[in-house]
Structure formats: structure tokens, C-alpha cells
């Protein structure tokens, strides 16, 4: 089997995912084009060498519908010869896109492919693509559909994370992200989004609130208490986890991932592909995995899938220098650290989605680049990237610098 290498990774900044967000005026396709164009230009890549563009997108409807990967590759000028495919595994879509690109390289069927993702949450709206799992009683009832916030609160309740615990983690995320930006740790990979005249529309993650402290978070009301009670979801959570007496609602906008717009792209290839393109590999993809897990907890998949990915790589957690787990909610990260017994100083060292936002389908491709930059900056070797996934799944990838 061929090795799959990462040759480059870029992302757009993350715009606030509302009508007043800077990227709201930018069509979803153009977000993806920004990332694809950067991959092409800064690597002086002949796009004809790209044998597939795999993009994750969670709400692929409207302008993001009908295979946005193909539309984006065309608009990025890759030429009619370059195919595109859009995939969806909810929040891990971006990472799964990279894994799928890598898998095709490993089989030897392709030498160069791009994986990544795009989501314009301000323009399309979360949940716009619908889906049977929340709505169809034949699936929702037996498989304990819950809104993710309720699942996050269930995790906090079941594993004993208090409101202070989850708020403290959120404050830390903001601090780490602010420091990373201040020190320019992201500048290598963040590609400003520009207009047709070359004017910059956004060059920074605009969701961050570096001034956040325990006191300011303490003033926010738990966001999921009302739907938990009136919508019946607390009862569903308890039905699935009957050792829980009641749900302690601790999550709110300040300790959950932000709703933002953005795109990512990761250039993956074989050794042969790199040679053809005249590029030097930055890291090798050691292993990857996806799993299904408890439906009601929903967001604990990263634990099991990390163990699986490590096993496939022939490694243990002690072999990993940096962990990057998507900060969907504070409790997701806290439970991950608790279950795997990790040193918090190795986890999400430059902050995460609580501070900078989580453009659903794009995030996986973003954080793989973030952690690779950090490995290079600090001279470390290995990293594990993982995301929790709606409907109780998880995806993980292990990389190692070469």
C-alpha cells in the first residue's frame, strides 16, 4: 500500500455565521474557491494533476447543493478534467474528506487529491438539509434522537462536569486562541477571503471573544434547559441513560462551538504524486478510522475512534505529541481528556471551535492544518485529530511529520 502524505493545508478565516458576519456576502462556492485557489497558487500546482476534489459539507442544499466540490473546482479554474465529490458525515465531513482522499492515494488509484470542506452557516442555515433521524418517528424514537446540546449536557451530567468546569474550559479556549493569533501561529495557513478587486473581506477569525472570563460566562443562561423540559428531550436522555436522575444543563453559546462560515483544503498525495508536482511532503497520514457510538451521548465517539486509529497505526496515546479534538461543546473535550487520561496541556493547544467557531463541514480540514503547523512550529512529531459527529459517530486521523 502506498503512503499518503500531506503536502499542504489551508483554510479561510472563520466569519461570524450571521447576517452581520463578514463572510455572509460570500457565496459558499467562493469560500471553497479561496481555499482551492490557495492550494493551487502557493504550491504552483498544475491543477490537471489533481485527480479528485473531495469536500465535506453538512447542509448541501441551495447554493451548496448538487456537488459543491465540482462547482468549486470549476470556479477555482482547475479545469473541466478535475472531478469533485461532496461528502457528508456531519461535523467530521472535512476530516473524512481528507481521509477519503488519502485512502484513494493509498490504494494507488490516485496520486494527488484534495480533501477539505466548506460551510456557509450564515447563508444556508444549520439543519437546512433536513434528515430522517430527528424527524422520522421510526428512527428518532428507537435511536434516541437528541439535539446536540442536550447530549452535551447529558455528558456533563453523567461524567460529573459542573457549570464551572465547562465554563473554565471555554475561557481557556479563548485564551489559547487569542495567544495563537497574537503570536501569528495561524498566519501560515489562513488565507484571507478577497473580493473580485482584490480587496480583503476578512483575514481574521471574527468569532473570538478574548476578553471572556468566568464572570461573563456565568451570566449566560443554560441554552438547552427549555427544550430539554418542554421538548421532552431530557426524558429521552434519561431513558437512554437511566442511571441519570435529571439533566444538569450547563452549556450555552459561550462554551459551545461558534456558528461560522469558512472553508478548508488539504493537498494529499503519494510520493510519486509529490515528485510529479515538485513538492515536499510535510506529514504522513499514519492511520484513520470512523466509528459509530452511543446515540444519546452522541458526542463521545472521539474516545473509541481515537483508540481505534491509534491501534491501526500501531501506536498508543503516549506516542502522540498533540491532540486536536473539535470543541463542539466543552464537555466533549473534558470527557475526552478524562476518558483517555490525557494531559490537558497536549490538547487543543491553540484553542478551538469554542473560540474560533465550527464551520461544520470545513472544520476537519481546518484543524488538521492547525495542528500540523503547531507540530512544525514546536518541532514535535505526531498528532491525532478527531471530531465528534452527530448521530453518534466519530472520525480520527493520526499524522506524523516526515
Amino acid at each position, binding site marked *: 500500500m502506498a503512503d499518503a502524505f500531506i503536502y499542504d493545508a489551508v483554510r479561510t478565516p472563520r466569519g461570524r455565521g450571521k447576517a452581520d458576519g463578514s463572510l455572509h456576502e460570500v457565496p459558499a462556492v467562493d469560500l471553497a474557491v479561496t481555499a482551492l485557489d490557495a492550494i493551487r497558487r502557493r504550491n504552483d500546482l498544475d491543477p490537471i494533476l489533481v485527480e479528485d476534489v473531495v469536500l465535506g459539507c453538512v447542509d448541501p442544499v441551495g447554493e451548496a447543493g448538487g456537488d459543491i466540490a465540482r462547482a468549486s473546482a470549476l470556479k477555482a479554474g482547475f479545469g473541466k478534467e478535475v472531478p469533485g465529490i461532496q461528502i457528508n458525515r456531519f461535523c467530521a465531513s472535512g476530516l473524512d474528506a481528507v481521509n477519503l482522499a488519502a485512502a484513494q492515494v493509498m490504494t494507488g488509484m490516485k496520486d494527488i487529491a484534495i480533501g477539505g470542506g466548506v460551510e456557509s452557516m450564515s447563508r444556508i442555515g444549520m439543519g437546512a438539509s433536513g434528515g430522517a433521524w430527528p424527524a422520522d418517528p*421510526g428512527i428518532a424514537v428507537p435511536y434516541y434522537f437528541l439535539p446536540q446540546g442536550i447530549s452535551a449536557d447529558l455528558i456533563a451530567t453523567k461524567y460529573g462536569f459542573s457549570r464551572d468546569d465547562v465554563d473554565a474550559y471555554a475561557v481557556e479556549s479563548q485564551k489559547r486562541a487569542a495567544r495563537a493569533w497574537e503570536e501569528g501561529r495561524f498566519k501560515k495557513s489562513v488565507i484571507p477571503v478577497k473580493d473580485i478587486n482584490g480587496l480583503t473581506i476578512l483575514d481574521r477569525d471574527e468569532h473570538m471573544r478574548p476578553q471572556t472570563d468566568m464572570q461573563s460566562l456565568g451570566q449566560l443562561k443554560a441554552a438547552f434547559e427549555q427544550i430539554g423540559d418542554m421538548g421532552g428531550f431530557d426524558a429521552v436522555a434519561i431513558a437512554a441513560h437511566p442511571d441519570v436522575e435529571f439533566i444538569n444543563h450547563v452549556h450555552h453559546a459561550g462554551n459551545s462551538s461558534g456558528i461560522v462560515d469558512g472553508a478548508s483544503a488539504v493537498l494529499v498525495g503519494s510520493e510519486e504524486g509529490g515528485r510529479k508536482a515538485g513538492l515536499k511532503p510535510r506529514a504522513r497520514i499514519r492511520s484513520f478510522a470512523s466509528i459509530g457510538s452511543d446515540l444519546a451521548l452522541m458526542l463521545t465517539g472521539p474516545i473509541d475512534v481515537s483508540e481505534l486509529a491509534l491501534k491501526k497505526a500501531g501506536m498508543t496515546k503516549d506516542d502522540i505529541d498533540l491532540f486536536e479534538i473539535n470543541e463542539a461543546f466543552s464537555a466533549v473535550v473534558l470527557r475526552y481528556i478524562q476518558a483517555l487520561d490525557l494531559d490537558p496541556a497536549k490538547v487543543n493547544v491553540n484553542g478551538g471551535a469554542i473560540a474560533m467557531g465550527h464551520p461544520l463541514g470545513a472544520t476537519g480540514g481546518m484543524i488538521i492544518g492547525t495542528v500540523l503547523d503547531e507540530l512544525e512550529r514546536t518541532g514535535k512529531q505526531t498528532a491525532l485529530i478527531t471530531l465528534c459527529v452527530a448521530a453518534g459517530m466519530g472520525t480520527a486521523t493520526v499524522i506524523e511529520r516526515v
Partner: protein
Amino acid sequence: MTNFNNFRFEVDGDGIAVATWDMPGRSMNVITTEVMGELSAIIETVANDAAIKGCVVTSGKDSFSGGADLGMLQESKTQFEKLAKEKGPEEAMKAFFEESRRLSLLYRRLETSGKPFVAAIHGVCLGGAFELALACHHRVLSDVDATRVGLPEIKVGLFPGAGGTQRVARLMQTGDALQMLLKGDQIRPLMARNMGLVHQVVPRDQLVQAGKDWIKGGGSAEAPWDQKGFKLPSNKVYTPAGMQIWPPANAIYRRETQDNYPAARAILEAVYQGLQLPMDQALRVESRFFAKILRSKEAAAMIRTFFLSMQELNKGARRPKNVPPTSLKKVGVVGAGFMGASIAYVTANAGMEVVLIDRDTEAAEKGKAHSHKLMTDQIMKGRAKTADRDALLARIKASADYNDLKDCDLVVEAVFEDPKVKADVIQKVEAVIPADCIFASNTSTLPISSLAKTSKRPDEFIGIHFFSPVEKMMLVEVILGKQTGDKALAAALDFVRAIKKTPIAVNDSRGFFANRCVLGYILEGHLMFLEGVPPAMIENAGKQAGMPVGPLSLNDEVGVDLGLKILRATKEQLGEAAIVPAQEQLLTELVDKGGRLGRKNRKGFYDYPENGPKRLWPGLKELQPKHLDAETLDMQELKKRLLVTQALEAARTVEEGVITDPREADVGSILGFGFAPYTGGVLSYIDFMGAKAFVDLCRDLQAKYGDRFAPPKILLDMAASGETFYGQAEARKAA
């Protein structure tokens, strides 16, 4: 005029037909195979006769109809099982599917016949009958208070399968439609009009004319949902609005049913899928679910217990036939405490005169004041008038003089649960009451036969055991002592019927029937607790199994101290071997050391804060000798233990001859202590599982958890012979 057996069919000078449903020899119209055939002929006549402009369907009786004959539905299931044996399951299923949707297709034919149909409804119109009305193009109700419409199928484990789910969901907002279908409430005329279920409410004598006028005025023969451009009241399922509706609807369904009721789930699925289809296909999907639910054991169990058995018991199934109806003009109640005062209230509320006796007039008046309070609550809720309260209170005489009992037809004592106190009351009462007056004790713990020993006339001595709160609890246990005679039994049953409650007749035994089962449930909860099962899991296991509350909550409700008292009394009278010492130790710890008596002093297994919901007491952890990891526990097994322990106790009451009719155990278990209703009751739980499977389950639990799960001989015999409790009862009746 065409004549049918069940309808009068006339066409007036304007060419408008009136089909008057009036079944011979029945007080109430019901949908039978013959009715369906005749209705079909009427529809075809109206559709094909160019001279007929439309048709008004009404009833010749005091009510419209109660719906389909549940016996007919059960029969079709039996036919299916027979056919499955003869021709194989696939062939049988095809035939059953077609048969089970005949009514649905008939109504659809009416709806699409091209001629306008009007339902003119007076009195109750429920279930399949209201589905007929829903298929009509126009619905008129009489403004009479007794008129009610509704789809109560869910209450017997079924759902409206003749278009009901689809038409209701097209008449109102999805959330409202689901609520109506899942609750099965009967709806008053004005409410029905406000909900959009019917079009007009008119005086009874104008019903048919209003229907005719609507047809003459050009009423459309096309249902709204068959018209071009029809918009669903809540828009399409897959819209942002739909996404606000369905996820919580699914969650609330689980909260309310614990997913134990396939018919309720089928309602959700039929509406969800149906709203995405045109009407004919939507009806076919509804039929698919109906054919499945009609074959479910939950429907069979619930129809039998909630419809057939309940009705039979209320009609006096156990009443000795040779005793003439008891005259119950005046009833004495001795002891004006909480129970006595409530018994006085329900008796007076049923129109009987009541003498409420206590040791002094003040205490008796205090008991009477309870009725004043209850009636005032009713007035505040708009359910009664001041005059009703005055009349009711006038029927209750509060007194300290036993001589006031001298012309009573029945006396019920509800004094302190002490044999000496009771003996004294029995003596005083018997000294004044007439010879044909029946004496009843409302004891819940003392054996009736031993109390009867202090009576001079034990054949006219009986137990009438009410459950608390008396006003709400629909069950009454009638307890037969060894010497209780037929006349006393008949009087007790007549009395229970008069106060509109459901009686079960139980032979004397410690705890009678209901409390024996309940104590088993609570004990199992305590034992799980001592095993180290997380308390929340014990409670949730009870609720998920279908019980109204978990065993620890129930213990708090009845009083942890009362539980301890009963336990100690049992130990004193039957010896150490009759109790579980660890349970005594646990309760002693809670009551004597912790002062935790239950809800009454706001601390038991739970804490009951002044504001905010009750929460399990954090100190419980220290009372558990060990703590099991929730992830290693088998929730299904915990649920089974909680139900099996009750069913086993019920089987023992049958073996001991305490229960002599399985209907009484089933109805009693549901009305008395809310035993998982979807099972049809404690004995149906065993019957539908099969005695053999149940015995295997008991053996498994016995090996793991001890001899309290040892199956009694009666079950071993049934397992060997393949018999059921109901089968045996039938055989006894036939013999």
C-alpha cells in the same frame, strides 16, 4: 324508500337522502360487518342515482355510535391466525390486510363518491363512527351537552385506522392533531368546532335540516385535501416548521409512553409518513400500520382488560344472580378521618344519604368539611354549581350518636386500624342497625375473617377496601371473609357500582390482593438498592417498565414509616422468616435514625424542597453497602424483575384462591396500582408471555436473585399444560 336492517333510508322532495342509523335490538349503534355492507349499498345508491343530490347520515338513537365492534376486530385477528395455519403467513397477511382496511376504503369511497355527504351527530360519536363523520364532507353537531366526538382507540391499544389519523392531521396543526390522537379524549361540541373538527353546532331538532341546507346550498362533494392547491395546516414535514414539530413530538411520545405502546408509535409514524403523501396512498400507509397494530399483543391485552373486562365487572360480573338489587338509600360511615370523610363524599356525591359518625360532633363535622372543600374545588373549576354543593352537604349528617345509624342500609367503618378499636365499633354499630343492614370494614391491613369474629352476624360482614385518594382511585376491593354471605357481596357490589367505581371481589388474605403486589414492587426496589444499583436507575426501571412511579417514590408516597410498620407487624405475626432482614435494617436506618418518613415530612428516599422538583437524597449512597457500575447493569432485567415480582404475587393469590377471576386481578392491578397498562394487567402479563416463558424467566431470576422468584405450582402446571389463566377461567365457566 329503501329499507335496510340497520338504516332507514329516505329521499325527500328536494332529492336529498337521509340515512338514519338505527340498529334493531341495541341501545347503541355499532359498526359491524352487516352495517358496513349496508353503508356500502347506501353510498352506491347515492352515488349512482342521478335524482339524489346528496345524503345526510344521522342516528335514530340517543347517541350517534360508539364506533366499531371491538369483538369484530378481535375476531378478524383470530381469523388471521387460523388462515395463517391453513394457507401460510403470507397468504393470511394479504387477506388480513385487505379485511382490516375495508372500513377505510368504504369511507374513502364515500368521500370520493361525487355526491356530498353530511354527518348529523347527536350524542356520542366515537372511534370508527367519528371516522365516518370525518369522511363526510360536512359535519354538524347538536349543541346538547351530552354530545361528544373523539377517537379513543388509543385507550385500548389501537389507533384510528379508518382514515382518522390522516383526516385529523389534515384538519388541524400537526401538534394538535397528534395530541388529539394520542390522548383519545372525548370532545365537546363547541370545542370540536373551534378545533376545526366539525363545521356547525345547532340545536338537536335542526340537525338534519342543517345538513340538508348545506347540501342545497351547493356544498362541495370534494374534501379539502382532494382539492387542487390544498395546503397542509402545518406545511410540509420537511420544512423548518416541520423540523420544529417532529423532533419534540418524538421525544414527548417517549416521555409519555416510555415507548411501551406500539399503537401510539404507529400514530406518529402514520401521520409522519401520511402527510408526505396524497390521500389515497396516505390511507394505505395508515392501513399498513393498522394491520400490524391490530395483531399486536398490546391491543389484544388492552381491549380485553380496558374494554371487555372493565365493562363486565362494572355490570356486576361477580354479583350473585339470585339476590335482588340492594336498596341503598342511606349509608353510614363511621370514622370521619381522611378515608371516612372521603367515603362520605363519594357516597353523597352519588345521591345517597350519609350519616358520618365520629367520637364527637366536632370531629364528624371536620370530616364533613372535607366534602365542602372538594365541592368548592369543583365549583372553582366550573364543574359544579353552588346549589350542587349545598345539596350534597345537605345529604351528609355529621353526628356522634350511633343511634343515627338505625335506618341505614349499609355501614362502612373507617376507624383506626386496631382490632380492639374496630371490635368496639362493630359492637356499637350492630347494636343499632336494622337486621338487613350490611356492615363493611374499610380495613387495609386486618383480615376480614378475624374482624368478623367480633360480629354477631358474620354472614352480613364484608370488607370494602378503598384506595387513597378515594375521589380519584377507581378501584374498590370487596373482601369476602370466610362467612360472608351472598347478600353482603351483592350489597357491596351494588354500592361500588352506585358510586361509579369498579369493584373486584377478593377472598380474605393478608394485604388482600392489590397491596400484596405493591409491597412486592417496593421490596424489589429496596433489594436492588441494597445490591448497589444506582437509585436513579431503580426508579427509571420502574417507570420504563410502565409503572406510574418508581418503587422508591412509591414508598415515599405511602410513607417509609408505614412500610416499616407493616414489615414489623408481619415479622411479629408470621416470624422472622416472613421478612427480609436487610429491608428492615434499611427502613430502620431511614426512619428511626434519619427521621425520613417519606413525602409527608419532605424527606424519604427523596428530598422534597419547598420550591423545585424532588431529588433523590444524596445520603442514600452511604446506605448502599456497595455501588454497581451502571454500564454493567442490564436495564431490561431490572425492568423485568419489577414486573415479574408483582405478577408472581398475583399468581400466588390465584393459587391461594384469593383471586378467583383473572379479570379482577388484571383490572384491579391497573386501577389499583397502575400496573403497566400495556400488558393488560398482572395476569395478562403472564398469559401473553406464555406460562412456560414466564416460568423460565422466574427460574433465571431465582438463580440470580433468590427464592422470592421461585414459580409457584400453579405456574409450573400451566407451563407444563400450556394453559393460561383466562383459558382456565373459561374452562371453569363452561364446566
